[in-house]
């Protein structure tokens, strides 16, 4: 049961170009990879992964539309409604873990990285360009092995984060890969992990309305991203015909990714 609570913004941090972190107090217990439904009064309600899971929770927003723009414009003391947490979250496994985030995908991965003992987690961060590289300093606090890729080569390796993952999987033995980012990236990431025979858990995004497993707007092959996801294992992902190829729009129509 997930009643709406009203939370007050305690801090606003500009992370990178167009990317903002809001912190607020909420007593719910949140696992890395779970998400909230965030109500911006008078505007909309949108799903947001928790980027901080301690007592002072956080969400990290990319300004891409009306709701995210309104969220990014909030100030300390403003109020939002929160429901959740929803979804399954990442399973923190034994052994050596490789974390790969594209764009704002890093926001839901960092709490997972922080939940793993330092010394057995490596972090790879990808973005289009250096000004969009997210949460680098926070990542460096949990791992000595943090590497960056940018499409334009303005920082770190020139190329995609998936290419960076491939290099790491070839050079080193990992037991699990955790990934979050655009679905094309995730689809390529699954292939790379399968090829190296390394299990992965990837966090997916779909159009969400109710958040509670009822309305069915976020389904991928009949599986509810809000309830059974948003994090899926390699085995689950391989069975999904829609993964990497199509998604549902706000009317429920199938559209190509």
């Amino acid at each position, binding site marked *: *049961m*997930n*009643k*709406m609570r*009203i939370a007050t913004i305690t801090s606003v941090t500009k992370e990178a170009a167009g990317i903002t972190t809001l912190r607020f107090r909420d007593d719910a217990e949140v696992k890395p990879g779970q998400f909230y*439904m965030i*109500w911006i*009064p*008078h*505007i*909309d*309600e*949108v799903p947001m992964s928790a980027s901080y899971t301690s007592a002072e929770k956080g969400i990290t927003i990319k300004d891409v539309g009306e*709701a995210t723009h309104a969220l990014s414009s909030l100030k300390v003391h403003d*109020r939002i*409604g929160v*429901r959740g947490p929803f979804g399954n979250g990442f399973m923190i496994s034994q052994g050596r873990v490789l974390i790969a985030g594209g764009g704002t995908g890093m926001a839901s991965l960092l709490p997972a990285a922080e939940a793993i003992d330092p010394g057995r987690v490596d972090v790879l961060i990808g973005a289009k360009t250096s000004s969009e590289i997210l949460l680098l300093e926070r990542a460096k606090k949990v791992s000595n092995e943090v590497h960056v890729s940018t499409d334009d080569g303005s920082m770190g390796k020139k190329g995609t984060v998936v290419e960076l993952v491939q290099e790491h999987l070839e050079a080193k033995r990992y037991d699990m890969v955790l990934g979050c980012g655009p679905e094309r990236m995730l689809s390529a990431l699954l292939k790379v992990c399968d090829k190296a025979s390394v299990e992965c858990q990837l966090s997916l995004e779909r159009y969400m*309305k*109710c*958040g*509670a*497993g*009822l*309305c*069915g*707007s976020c*389904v*991928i*092959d*009949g*599986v*509810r991203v809000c309830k059974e996801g948003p994090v899926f294992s390699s085995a689950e992902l391989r069975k999904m015909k*829609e993964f990497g190829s199509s998604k*549902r729009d*706000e*009317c*429920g*129509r*199938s559209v190509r990714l």
Partner: protein
Amino acid sequence: MSSLEVTIGNLALRNPTMLASGVMDETAGSLLRVARAGAGAVVTKSIGSEPRKGYPGPTLVELDDGYINAMGLPNPGIEAFAAEMREARSCLVPVIGSIFASSPKEFSFLASKMQDYGAAAIELNLSCPHAKGYGMEIGVDPETVFTVVREVKSACSIPVFAKLTPNTHRLLEVAKAVEAAGGDAIVAINTVKALAISAEIRRPILSNKGGGLSGPAIKPIGLRCVYDLHADVNIPIVGVGGVENWRDAVEYIMAGASAVQVGSGVGRAGLEVFESICTGMQAFMEREGFNSVSHMVGVAHE
């Protein structure tokens, strides 16, 4: 061994549980999954002539005893839904096509499309409480309902169910209009008009302000409607409103329902809800000496 098989008009179901419209039923994948989970039939999301986005969020409020929702009839539109039906038809249980429209002519058009797509029956949404020009705005007037049902009946040959709203003092008149127009079954009830307010934000939570209450909170209202309908109409009734365990289902059946639908129960009790209702009902029937579900229908009136 007691049998759970039921028939509604000429529609045979392996058990008396159906997925209610609006819940996990917008895509073939969802419908197939619910059928695999044990439902005796599945009802699709209400489909209209054109694609609809529905309302901005929040569209759902969770309460201790249910939900208030105002989704705003989001749906891909009847043309795009052809692909979903093509795939959903492969499931082993009847797929009932729910439709909403603003005129008898539009209802008939959508019903004949659903029939072409292979729907086993039509469910007319005459009861959505939160979409202007649709649903209960049409479904509270017996004459309009008579015309809608009669025209849909003449436009298709599959059974036609009418899903009615409890938000009227004319429920029995509306139900009699469905029966007089040749409707094959009544589905009752849709959600009850409701509102949730945030004290801190000082405004309604749902973007549409008003919504519809569902779940255990409305079970006594649904039971009363089904009980009264059973006394007044002679076509089968499908009971819906707060069914989430075998006892709820048995109560609806004893009030007069031939089958039940489960909507909110899918969110509150999980997809296992269909199987657990069936297992519990069968055990109850064996304990109490009922050979078939039909022997329980309406016994509360005797």
